[in-house]
């Protein structure tokens, strides 16, 4: 069965650079969530989209932005990268607003040097 696809799997950037993470949800899923998991930390909710509209916002820095496109894939744009942005970024998708548990992607490991 198709899963949530995230790209790239690994990304190395220098401080002050920009990064774009992509997420392709399970077909027909209309809701996408982004989480950030720092080293040894639990996942922290960043932002979510339902039917291409932002549905909820968590602890996402102003330097980050995200959107969901017409084909329901989502991109997380991160600018002015800081060392503290190094983390595993997960995307998850669900049907009809989620809440009943959803499927996570394998994550993008971002390292800022």
């Amino acid at each position, binding site marked *: 069965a198709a899963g949530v696809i995230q790209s790239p799997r690994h990304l190395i950037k220098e401080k002050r650079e920009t990064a774009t993470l992509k997420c392709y949800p399970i077909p027909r899923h209309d*809701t996408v*969530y982004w*989480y950030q998991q720092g080293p040894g*930390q*639990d*996942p*922290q*909710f960043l932002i*979510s989209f*339902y039917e291409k509209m932002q*549905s*909820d916002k*968590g602890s996402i820095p102003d330097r980050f932005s995200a959107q969901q496109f017409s084909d329901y894939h989502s991109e997380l744009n991160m600018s002015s990268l800081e060392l503290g942005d190094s983390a595993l970024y*997960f995307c*998850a998708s*669900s049907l009809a*607003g*989620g*809440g*009943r*548990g*959803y*499927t*996570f*992607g*394998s*994550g993008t490991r971002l390292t800022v040097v």
Partner: protein
Amino acid sequence: AQSVTQLDSQVPVFEEAPVELRCNYSSSVSVYLFWYVQYPNQGLQLLLKYLSGSTLVESINGFEAEFNKSQTSFHLRKPSVHISDTAEYFCAVSDPGGTSYGKLTFGQGTILTVHP
């Protein structure tokens, strides 16, 4: 607001021993409850979930969890663990009736290490 507390950051056990990973939550509304497992350098996999109905839920690999509303707990148990169960386990909650559209709040995680 919701919060989740996993009482043990690390749980070492021997193979074939029983294990319990504890999870307590705080919420002013009814919640959905989940356990996710994360193997090293991998994503989060749903282990089991409680949405409604029977308070005892089971996974396909022998784990079970019981929702206890009075104690606001959702402890994860397995009667006999295997080496392959070594992983980090996260308890999570979501608010089914709120405007958060399914946002999950995670506990701090419990690292289960199974020794031979």
